[in-house]
Each structure stands twice: as structure tokens, then as C-alpha cells.
């Protein structure tokens, strides 16, 4: 999307100095109450409409998932899972999949292009397409398998949490369209409070393991779920139980990157001062002249 002046930037990819960040903005969050979702896909339609995206017509794989997967033009997809947590009691779990807007975004950490990925002060993680070089490092860094690289322009796309709407005081398009109130938007604190009420309600209705999905492994997320089986998030189309930035990505960006620069500067400096101290190695022939 685009850089929005009224949204301060908390983090910027491949950038070592702080970005403009003098304003104080409350952290926002989208709360998706899976237990109130009826799977109508109004959110998918609203997302397409607001962002002016039209995906190609796909094919049916025997489930209600349509399209089958997230794509550069489908930033959110309803994931339908048929499970039996108790034997003989079928449950149809419907999870709205898309970018989780991690507080510690793996995509941003992995991205080599300055300013191609930003995290605004309100917590929204956004791709700034004109800075994207199409390397796919965001895909490598993401613990949720969200970013998709377009075959048309080789740029990465994902949900922007409607940063353009949020900055002018509107809620994301999916939130506005949801007919059951399963998707809500507000400050992260308010959303947690609302979730707490929902969880009490679910507990009373027999869902002892109902809970909030706000995984601490990625510093919490700005898209949270209320799950009736929060003890088994994998039931919801493989939602990771404890998502973290892969240790390989952390090793790459946290250790190899800084130490390598030091080693290369050290090698050049070492060579230079070796020459200064020892001088050239000449053979007898050259010494004679």
C-alpha cells in the first residue's frame, strides 16, 4: 500500500535508524470471534471490494474454502475445518485466515529492502509495494505462511488491515461487512476486554477450553481470535499453537548478518595493517634492482 503520513512508523525493514515516531498511538487490533462466524464470506467480498482486487475464478477442492488458499489478490480466506473434538460430535470450525499483524513481524525482520515493510505505531504491518524487490524473504520470515508473491509484478501482497481506512478513523472493510459481529476492531486493550466477556460466556456454555489467541511467541498479534478450543489451535486449519520466528531466520538476521560485516571489515583491515607492518614479500630478483 502506501506510506501514510498520519500514521507513525514503529519499525521499517532493512533500516538501522529510528523512523518518525513522535506521536503516541494506541495499539489497535482486529478480534475475530470464530464462535460467532457463520462462514458467509462477506468479509472476503468486502476485502476484494475495498482493495479493488478480483482474483481469478478457481476450482473446487471439495471444501467450502474459496479460493483454496490466500493469493496476491485474496488477502483473506475462510478456512473450513470439520473436526470431532468429542467422538460423535461434529464441529464445523470456520477461521478467517490472513495476516496476523505480529507485534514482532518475521516478514519485516527478514526483508532486505529498506522500507518495503513497515509496522505503524498502531501495530499494523504493511507492505509498501514500490519498495518491494520481490525476493520472497517475507515468505521465508513469516511464521503464518501469509505473504504471496504476485506472478504479474513479482511483488508481495497481504492484508493491510485496511491501514488506509484506519488512518482516517474507519474500521477495516471486513469488520464493516460482518453481519454477525464476529469481526470487531478497536484498541487492543478494548478487544482483549471484549474477548474476555466472550470467553466467560463460552465457558458457561460448556466450552471449558475457550480462550484468546494472541500468541506471545511473536510478541502478540494485532489480529486475535476467540477460539472455542484455544487449547488446540491446530484444529483451525493448522493455526500454529506456538508461532515463533524460525530460529534459522533469527540466526540469519540476528547473528550471521552483523558478525559477517565485522569479519569482512576485519579481514580488510588486518590485511592492510599486515602490509604496513611487514611490507611486501619480494623475491631476490626484485630486491637486486
Amino acid at each position, binding site marked *: 500500500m502506501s506510506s501514510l503520513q498520519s500514521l507513525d512508523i514503529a519499525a521499517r525493514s532493512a533500516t538501522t535508524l529510528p523512523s518518525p515516531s513522535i506521536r503516541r498511538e494506541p495499539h489497535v487490533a482486529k478480534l475475530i470471534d470464530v464462535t460467532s462466524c457463520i462462514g458467509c464470506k462477506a468479509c472476503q467480498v468486502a476485502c476484494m471490494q475495498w482493495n479493488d482486487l478480483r482474483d481469478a475464478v478457481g476450482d473446487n477442492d471439495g471444501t467450502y474454502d474459496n479460493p483454496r488458499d490466500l493469493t496476491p489478490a485474496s488477502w483473506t480466506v475462510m478456512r473450513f475445518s470439520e473436526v470431532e473434538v468429542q467422538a460423535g460430535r461434529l464441529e464445523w470450525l470456520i477461521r478467517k485466515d490472513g495476516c496476523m499483524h505480529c507485534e514482532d513481524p518475521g516478514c519485516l525482520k527478514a526483508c532486505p529492502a529498506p522500507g518495503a515493510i513497515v509496522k505503524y505505531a498502531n501495530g499494523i504491518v504493511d507492505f509498501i509495494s514500490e519498495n518491494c524487490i520481490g525476493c520472497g524473504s517475507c515468505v521465508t520470515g513469516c511464521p503464518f505462511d501469509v505473504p504471496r508473491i504476485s506472478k504479474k509484478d513479482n511483488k508481495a501482497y497481504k492484508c493491510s488491515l485496511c491501514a488506509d481506512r484506519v488512518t482516517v478513523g474507519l474500521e477495516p472493510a471486513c469488520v464493516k461487512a460482518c453481519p454477525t459481529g464476529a469481526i470487531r476492531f478497536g484498541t487492543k486493550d478494548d478487544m482483549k476486554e471484549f474477548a474476555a466477556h466472550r470467553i466467560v460466556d463460552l465457558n458457561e456454555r460448556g466450552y471449558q477450553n475457550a480462550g484468546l489467541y494472541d500468541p506471545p511467541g511473536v510478541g502478540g498479534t494485532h489480529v486475535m481470535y476467540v477460539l472455542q478450543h484455544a487449547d488446540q489451535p491446530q484444529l483451525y486449519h493448522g493455526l500454529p499453537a506456538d508461532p515463533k520466528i524460525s530460529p534459522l531466520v533469527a540466526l540469519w538476521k540476528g547473528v550471521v548478518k552483523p558478525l559477517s560485516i565485522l569479519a569482512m571489515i576485519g579481514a580488510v583491515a588486518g590485511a592492510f595493517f599486515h602490509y604496513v607492518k611487514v611490507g611486501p*614479500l619480494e623475491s631476490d630478483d626484485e630486491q637486486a634492482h
Partner: protein
Amino acid sequence: METTRYLQRYSDGDRINHWALVILFFCTALSGLSMFHPSLFFLSTLFGGGPWTRILHPFIGVLVFLSFAGMYLRLARDNVWTADDRAWLAGARALLAGRKDVVLPAGRYNAGQKILFWLMAITLAVLLVTGLIFWRPYFAGYFPIGMVRLATVVHSLTAVVLILGIIVHIYAAIWVKGTTRAMTRGVVPESWARHHHPGWAAQMTRDKH
């Protein structure tokens, strides 16, 4: 006055192959480094900006591999490890300390050069394989994400090892006077050869007479 006798160290083909490799190596190294550390991203300007750098880097990388394959065919035989090389390594410390009287046993290549040769062969093979695994948009999609992550970190680490090796290689050429002449002109003075590569000099002069 006695005229300097010269020995042929590199053929025209050797030298063209080597310098093609140098140019290609610098292109991949600089484009790779620009995508490795934010402080070096400005290097992407040399290649037409970020997206062009991302597009060109892997293609040039393949050319580096092919170019080195040419060097490999030319030089592998002379880089086979021998008993003399252990003695060269044992004496290398005195050489590095600036003891000009030290003459260490070496054939066409000394132990240090051989180590660099095999380091290049191994690192370039690793870089080719790991690079293919996360080459977008062509190949990355065929590999599981865990493999892509592993390949990325191994690729970076291997590239740094190779670059460190090349820094040593370039410095050795600057430090040991008369060496660059071998790669620019193809010939070296016999006295230079006797000092730095006594085994090779003996073999070359024996062949002549």
C-alpha cells in the same frame, strides 16, 4: 648484463577465464551484499535498483559457477594436496612475519593457494545448490519452507566465507610482489618462480633443457 628469463605461468585462455571470473564474482558479491545488510543496500544502485539486483544476482551467480568450473578443469590437477604442503603450512608463520630468507617447498601452487582453490570449489557448489532453493520466482516454490529457511542462512554464511577467502587471495597478490604479473602478462621471472614456487620452477626449467 644478464637478461631476465621468463617462465610461462598462465596461457591466454587461463587469464581470460580468470578475469571473467573476477568480474562476475564482483557482480554477484556486490549484488548479494546489497541484499544482505541494510548498510550495503546502496550497492543495488549499481545494478539498476533493488528489483533488478534481485533479478540479476542469481543469473550472474550461475555464470560465476560455470566460470569457476572452467578454472577447475584448468587447475585442479595442480592443486592436489601433496606431502610438501604440510611443510609449507608449518613455515607459513615465518613467511607472514616478513622473513624474506624463507623459501618454502611449493609446486605450481603452495598450500595456501590450494586451500583457497578447494575452498572456492566447495563454497561455490554450496552457493549454487542453496541459491537454487530460494531462487524466486522460478524454484523456491518447489521446496518446503523449512528448507528455504535453511538454504537462505547457509547461502549467506557460505558467501561470507568465500568473500573472506577472496579478500585473502587479493591481499596475497598485492603482498607478494611480482604475482599479479602472472595473471596480467602470463609470464613470471625465473627468479620469482625459484623463490615462491621452487618445485614448479625446477620442473619448468627441466622441461626446457
